[in-house]
């Protein structure tokens, strides 16, 4: 077992709406990522996966509020820190964050090298311009980005190039955890592939120690991360290795999700897609029992009011359902 880079223990956070209602977007999430590993989070929009990303990096700016739980980055607990301190001392050096529209966050009036200077100066105020340029050029060369990009403005770059530049800039300090929230969803497939290749190289060369990758595209997740977690209504419903999750999901929700994958591969045309009716519960008043019970084909009456425990099985797998693994696999087999 490698060293644990990121550990999240029973994290609970909420949004406060303008009418002072609480929305429990992340409700008791625990997971760990080891050194050199990547973890994917899958789930439909509104399941809390983006909120989880913000919560893990301690970005508690209104309307997001911290309730309880621990976030430990390489042994350092940041859960009690003020968001401003987190921004100053943790972001960039410990955690880097790449949102979906990161490429649009670049100030159009500045050259790329200035962003590099900003990031490095935040960590090392004495770094000289020449030193920064050398460092940036070396990193760009290693990641396969043309060094000429450093002297361009954001508007001169294509969307894919901008996104890769943002990733290169935000990981220049070799953060321990990289949180990528749909980093390639706004790009075309070719640029997406480049972004993925670059993330893999960052991991492979050890510039980032671990990665939390969030997307709703399951084939992408399968190809990027070692492990996959499926999130539903603010909770983790299943976790396993990428292969296990895609080909052998246990939780009825993950089962449905994995059975809706569409890839242009021979033999997939005849597959029957699993449709899950209904909509996720309102997180202002989460249900007492299983949050998926309303939409679950296999739900039993007790599912609606019992506390659903997280159960471990096999090696390092976990799921959240009243039914046993064998029971579930049996019903899937009958379909």
């Amino acid at each position, binding site marked *: 077992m490698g060293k644990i880079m990121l550990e999240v223990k029973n994290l609970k956070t909420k949004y406060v709406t303008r009418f002072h209602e609480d929305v429990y977007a992340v409700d008791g999430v625990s997971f760990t990522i080891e050194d050199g590993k990547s973890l994917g989070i899958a789930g439909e929009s509104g399941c809390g996966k983006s909120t989880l990303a913000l919560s893990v990096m301690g970005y508690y700016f209104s309307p997001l509020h911290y309730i309880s739980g621990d976030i430990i980055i390489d042994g350092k607990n940041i859960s009690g820190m003020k968001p401003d301190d987190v921004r100053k001392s943790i972001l960039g050096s410990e955690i880097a964050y790449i949102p979906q529209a990161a490429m649009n966050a670049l100030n159009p009036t500045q050259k790329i090298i200035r962003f590099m200077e900003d990031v490095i100066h935040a960590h090392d105020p004495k770094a000289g311009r020449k030193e920064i340029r050398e460092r940036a050029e070396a990193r760009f060369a290693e990641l*396969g980005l043309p060094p000429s990009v450093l002297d361009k403005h954001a508007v001169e770059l294509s969307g894919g190039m901008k996104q890769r530049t943002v990733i290169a800039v935000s990981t220049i300090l070799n953060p321990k955890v990289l949180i990528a929230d749909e980093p390639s969803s706004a790009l075309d*497939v070719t*640029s997406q592939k480049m972004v993925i*290749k670059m993330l893999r190289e960052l991991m492979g060369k050890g510039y980032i120690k671990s990665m939390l990758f969030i997307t709703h595209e399951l084939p992408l997740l399968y190809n990027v991360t070692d492990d996959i977690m499926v999130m539903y209504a603010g909770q983790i419903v299943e976790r396993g290795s990428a292969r296990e999750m895609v080909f052998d999901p246990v939780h009825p929700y993950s089962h449905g999700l994995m059975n809706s994958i569409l890839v*242009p591969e021979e033999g997939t045309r005849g597959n029957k*897609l699993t449709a*899950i*009716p209904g909509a996720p519960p309102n997180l202002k008043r989460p249900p007492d029992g299983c949050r998926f019970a309303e939409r679950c084909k296999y739900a039993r009456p007790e599912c609606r009011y019992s506390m659903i425990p997280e159960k471990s099985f096999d090696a390092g797998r976990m799921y959240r359902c009243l039914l046993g693994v064998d029971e579930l696999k049996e019903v899937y087999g009958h379909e």
Partner: protein
Amino acid sequence: MSERAIEQTDFTNRPLCLSGRGVTKIFGLGDKRTVAVDHVDFDFHEGEFVSIVGESGSGKTTLSKMLLGLLNASEGEIFFQGKPRDISTGRKKKEYWKGIQAIFQDPFSSFNTFQKIDTVLLDCINMRGGKHLPKEKKIEMMTEACGFVNLKFAELTNKYPFELSGGQMQRLMIARIFLLRPRILLADEPTSMVDACSRATILDMLLNLRDEIGMTVIFITHDIGLAYYISDTVYIMEHGKFVEFGKADEVILNPQAAYTKRLISDVPKIHEEWDLSTVDLLSQK
């Protein structure tokens, strides 16, 4: 839901529903002149499920607007049911739109948020000449249409579209098509804004709708896996041109055009290894 037939029906000897010859759209003049759609030919047959696959900027949305008659073609001619399409006057347009309808990408912007769901559906009945039907008959029709997409009309009446989820809204759009019964349905990325689980439902409903009404479905998408799964015929579009078209199995499993090959290799797979070495990081894309 039954297992889908894998073998492909041959549509080429069915009557033509919508076809085009040399259809072109040019925006701007002089330096700003861009050719969005460049002399494309196409033949969509009755009952055919056609996908037009392209990346953003390929011109697929411009083409769809021309097919719908929301944009005029700069050059070329579009034929509707074998005859040259004439949409020169408001009246003729209105008549044409009885034959072709659309479902758009973003369900949240597809509805007028100030109109109740009843209004949306009643409008469809009126458009089909059912304006003077008795109220009970209208409600019966609306209930049937909602039932087709697994929605309960009784629960939707007097509600506004924004009270529904994205998936439900998109299903309501299908209910609208069910009431309108057009000859052609143009679906412009109808599942790209809904969740994976709702996507399966919507795709199933589109297939059922095609079988129920016997209409042609033109499915515009950027997702080649989705196009492969759902369509009979696939058209691959790049820079305003069709680079390849044919039966879904032939085009996807045995692509001929370099662009199609690249597109397929760039999409992450789950059964095959996704080859990352094919991309050149130094390219300016």
